[in-house]
């Protein structure tokens, strides 16, 4: 992520220190992770110490300080999906791609996340890949779905 893009985001928020979290959030959503250089740039432009930025960036699990894979898999483990079989679904996904929640595969193909009810309880259990919902999915069908993402 180059400085021009970061500066654009910062300028949008009038360069105010109070907008730090919003700035980080936008960088995260554009870039999918927060590189060290980006944090340094933000620190310099917003005049906020790097330690405080790191404090925030490590506090929220939405922020990632390591690169993410090309495809983000989200397995909903909210309450409703839980009683509808999300645990088995998650086990299947983990077995298939060989990583655990919060990790990225070494070929950078997939990142896996869980948690966070997405408000689609009618569709559970579900997995979401790059924003696309695969609803009421049985563990047996996961392999088929993931095949399409490389």
């Amino acid at each position, binding site marked *: 992520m180059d400085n021009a893009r970061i500066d654009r985001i910062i300028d949008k928020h009038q360069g105010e220190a109070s907008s730090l979290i919003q700035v980080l959030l936008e960088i995260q959503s554009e870039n999918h992770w927060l590189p060290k250089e980006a944090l340094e740039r933000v620190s310099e432009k917003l005049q906020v110490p790097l330690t405080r930025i790191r404090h925030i960036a490590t506090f929220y699990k939405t922020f990632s300080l390591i690169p993410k894979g090309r495809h983000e898999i989200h397995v909903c483990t909210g309450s*409703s999906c839980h009683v509808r079989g999300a645990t088995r679904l998650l086990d299947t996904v983990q077995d298939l791609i060989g990583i655990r929640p919060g990790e990225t595969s070494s070929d950078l193909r997939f990142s896996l996340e869980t948690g966070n009810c997405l408000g689609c309880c009618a569709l559970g259990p579900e997995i979401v890949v790059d924003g696309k919902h695969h609803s009421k999915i049985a563990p047996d069908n996961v392999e088929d779905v993931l095949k399409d993402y490389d």
Partner: protein
Amino acid sequence: MPRINSATELEELRKGILSKRDPNKPCIAICAGTGCLALGNDRVISAFEEEVKKQTLEAKVDIRATGCHGFCEKGPNIIIYPEEICYIEVTPEDVPEIVSQTVLGKEVIDRLIYTDPNTGEKAAHQSEIPFYKNQMRHLIGNNSKIDPKSIDEYLALGGYSALSKSLFEMSPEQVLEEIKKANLRGRGGGGFPAGLKWETARNAPGEEKYVIVNGHEGEPGAFMDRALFTGNPHSVLEGLIIGAYAIGSHQGFIYTRHDSPQLRNNIAVALTQAEEYGLLGENILGSGFNFNVEVHLDIGIFVSGESSALMRSIEGKNPEPRPKYIRTSVSGIWEKPSNLNNVETWANVPQIINRGSEWYTSIGTERSKGTKLISLSGNIVNTGVVEVPFGTTLREIVYDIGGGIPNGKKLKAVHFGGPMGGSIPESLLDTPLDFDELAKLGAPIGAGGMFVLDEDTNMVDVTRFFLNFLTNESCGKCVPCREGIRQMLKIVTNISEGKGREGDIELLEEISEVAGAASLCALGKTASDPLLSTLRYFRDEYEANIKEKKCRA
């Protein structure tokens, strides 16, 4: 867009909008709520747009992408006006037929209407489908009648008339009095009377005061705030402006989810449109009242929905809660008086002002007035957003509206309030929906997530689920919460894996007492509520797990 400079101009504009509308003109309202979009309703919307173009019907038929209709289970949903014909599970392939047969030919397509799985009875109209028929949809019912991106459609339904009435016919004190008389109670969890909170902020010293919408909705299994805010953003905004007027605030904040693009977008559009019309900003409707709103996004951690944490987050800091003895109504954002209410609480305000507190208090129970939005989920046939008057029994919600339990299973328990709530057993299903009744039973309504559990559920596992959720969400600042929850989780996990020991239950009770008394914020204080409620009603399951050393996980 012209700026509106008086109450009269607002009414003229409204008349103008209405006069251009033909109530008999067919309109296809397509649900673009989270659930239906995830099921591919965007493709249904494009298919309708193409079909209407193909048949050159643009002038004769309206298409409207709306917020969640409520019946998410049967999505993608569409409703065809003026007949209010509901089609469920619609695919793009159905579209040409719907346009020629139903929209033009006025004929119902049998295959696409709802069939009651129990009676086999078919229902074509919204007023006949049990899911809708047994509700009272004062707030969410408008979702299918408006395009959330069009302020004119909100105005056509009488929108902003309550704001105009407040500004020109009522003093701030009168507005406050009306809300107090209506006994509007907060919908975000506590059920605290909104009028009293407003009054505290109003009377707190200082010129600068803030009003805030809590649109965080972090409780797993809760999706009604999103449905309402995305589908009808102006109703929340109108309530907020009225509240600001009553409290004497000129700056508002909306704190909402970062992970729902529709929600963010619809709020942004609503703010811009309201500003252009002069319903927001300087000299609102020519009344001399000024009010601005800023949007802040949460970052997906549960505790940031707690009032003091939320306010720190708006200040740009980490959302760590602070002790409750400093009330945010007196000292909140930047130590200024700050009044926080939930999305649904704000959305109730316009109708109270328009129809009066007497009308409002005629709905509900003795001490819980009005309607309540419920997110129905879990082992239930009809998952979706439900709105019922307080006083409706849980049995009616589960069976008449929710359609009962899938796969012929029996109901075991109903859980309210998510990770800080509680479960009650089937035997108490005739309890009415009521803040105090449910709290007494150890299952406070919380934000309104109603989680239905069937006979196969192991309650120890449910408890473990919620404790596990909270260990990940505790901010870690105070020890009783951070360590207390972790230890409780460890013991409950042992019990559920068949490794429980005699004395574990007593130990759990002891830890929960300490965590409840010594934690800084409500997260830690109430973290053991699911545990305590399951110990109260399902103690035998814990005991059986311990005695028989059975693994139920």
